[in-house]
């Protein structure tokens, strides 16, 4: 057997291994090693400076009794429930508009994509100022219109929707591009045939555009689900997880456990558990959306 492997290696083209070496090294350093090390950490207590201590399944016991972590998962799900439909509707509507022959089409496409490339921290600080209760532009406009101020990020029931609106504004450009690609791949003859049959604009949109975008829709839903599950910068910068833990996302909670409180083992346990949840959710989504 060993001789066979040696023979195989001797016969193979070494230059191929050399060429793939940079990827293999980076994969080993930044993916395989951290993943393997995190798995070991699951069964240990470690605060970086003192030696690791074997705790068996104690981290799992803590996880299943940790009300705050489940609150963080609940918050993340709330965010996804608001964010994904909002994102799909806006991205689709804007993509359809930008697919028409309108003036300055290129300019608008660039403008909508701009927030995607701007740093999340910068955007969050900007929106923090827009949302400020006393001095924010949004509340100043509301006051001038004679409407009451909205506690955008100061009220537990408003804070997560406010963050979802901001995240939608930031990410919608990416999904507009994806939908535009999908729209441009829909054969024109379908619309021409529908027009001959007397279909209205709405009927064309609903019976041709939407079903034809099914594969793009699957991609958008999965990407925004994974993106939504990794919600971190926005609550970290804007609310710190408050008010009353209403914006504490699962990622923020894991970060706090690891880097604020030094519970590396517990954070690794939470991380694996959370990755498992994402895997299950994406699997279900893929089946449901694809079938439709």
């Amino acid at each position: 057997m060993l001789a066979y492997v040696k023979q195989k290696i001797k016969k193979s083209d070494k230059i191929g291994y050399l060429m793939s070496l940079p990827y293999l090294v980076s994969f080993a350093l930044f993916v395989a090693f951290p993943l393997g090390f995190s798995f070991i950490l699951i069964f240990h207590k470690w605060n970086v400076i003192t030696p690791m201590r074997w705790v068996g399944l104690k981290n799992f016991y803590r996880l299943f009794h940790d009300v705050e972590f489940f609150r963080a998962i609940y918050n993340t799900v709330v965010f996804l429930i608001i964010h994904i439909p909002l994102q799909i509707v806006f991205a689709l509507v804007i993509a359809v508009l930008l697919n028409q022959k309108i003036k300055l089409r290129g300019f608008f496409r660039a403008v909508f994509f701009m927030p995607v490339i701007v740093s999340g921290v910068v955007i969050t600080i900007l929106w923090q100022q827009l949302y400020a209760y006393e001095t924010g532009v949004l509340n100043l406009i509301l006051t001038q219109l004679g409407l009451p101020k909205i506690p955008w990020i100061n009220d537990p029931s408003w804070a997560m929707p406010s963050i979802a609106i901001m995240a939608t504004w930031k990410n919608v450009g990416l999904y507009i591009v994806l939908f535009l690609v999908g729209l441009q791949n829909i054969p024109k003859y379908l619309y021409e045939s529908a027009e001959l049959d007397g279909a209205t604009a709405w009927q064309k949109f609903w019976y041709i555009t939407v079903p034809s975008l099914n594969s793009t829709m699957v991609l958008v839903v999965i990407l925004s689900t994974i993106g939504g599950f990794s919600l971190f910068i926005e609550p970290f910068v804007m609310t710190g997880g408050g008010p009353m833990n209403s914006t504490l996302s699962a990622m923020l909670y894991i970060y706090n456990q690891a880097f604020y409180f030094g519970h590396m083992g517990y954070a690794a346990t939470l991380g694996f558990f959370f990755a498992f949840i994402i895997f299950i959710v994406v699997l279900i989504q893929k089946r449901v959306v694809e079938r439709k």
Partner: protein
Amino acid sequence: MKFKIFLILPIIAWLLLTACSKGQQGKAEAKPRRGLTYWCASNPQEYKLAKELVKAWNQRHPEIPVKLQTLPASQSSEEVLLAAIAGKTTPDICSNMWPGAMDEFIAAGGLLRLDTFPDFRSYVTERVMEDQLKTFQAKDGGYYQLPWKTNPIMVFYNKKIFRKAGVQPPLVTYSQFLSAAQKIVQDFDGDGQIDHWMLYRDIKPIWWQRLFDYYPFYICASGGRTLFEADSIVFNNQASVKVFRFFQTMYRRGYMPVTQFQGDQFLAERLATQISGPWLVAHIQKFAPADFEYGIMPIPKPDDYQGAVYTYGDPKNISIFNNTKHPRAAWQFAKWLISRHADQRLLEICDQIPMRKNLLSDSSFIAYFKAKPQMKMFALQAPFTRGVDGVADLKEIFNIISQEYEASVIYGRRPPEEAIERAAKRVKVIREWNR
């Protein structure tokens, strides 16, 4: 071809390895062979002070030169020091040690026990009061930190706003503070907006925010107690409840806004008071408008409280790290950093209060307090300060208190009694988990 590949690969590996080892060699050469490395805080004033003191030391002790470095940039000094202990790259001595993080440093075996030096007690007790020194004692009975400076947390107030509202400082009790707030938080110019708030605190539930509202008020209301006694929770008491209720009333009556302000609202004269330490004096002198008038008063106390007014001292101390090759020299240098001359320069350059007895009557400091009378308030308060407990998981404990504070005080979702009880229970669970 094969031969070339097998030749190239070891060469690349060798180049990488030698590059790494050369880097380490370079580092070792840069460090003085018989010297000490000293880390100070990175703010300009403390760096200036450290530079001056190191220069003077190096002139007097050329045999053990000190190399000065500022603490590497990070979210907090504690993070940097923990990373340095983990990586065994600590300096010999550091002067920005927060007592709240000492337990972790000691558990990691990173610090040198200072009371093993024969002159530790005599030198330190000449400078610091015995009860104050005791607050820095570790669980094992040893001392790993040299008391250096304290920044008593007090209340700054805007004299013009107080005058306009007809409020007479100082506001000694909670009810005086609340009735002053009632007069101040008004729409004086009739534009439909509140002109001034009584006080503002960041509403984000960040653990260290409590060091500037709940904690100094709790120390005051409890007559100088901290959160723990002999490693047991003691903060679930009436003092905590009173503090929660006071701040809850402030928010409920609209004297403190539930918002996030950008910029310094105290200097912008939108706040009548601000809870802060002496560093705010230097900040005001540098950035406040020319006609800005301010005063300083102690933390208000509950109406039924009798006794001295204590507060949080936000102490920063000096420690020597275990990996030092020159413990005696490091100890001598540490003593130089808390010498009378160094303390005088600490006041003059940084406007921070050294932990030293008889500060106001000591001839070395009289000129300073004469030139800056507002700093006298801090010097008077300094002996009545408390630090934080040297217990494990302190950040997590403050985080829990912060969450209960937010729920009860800011959003009024539960009565103070319940919030304090919940906090104590949660702290117990967390400590049990972390054991």
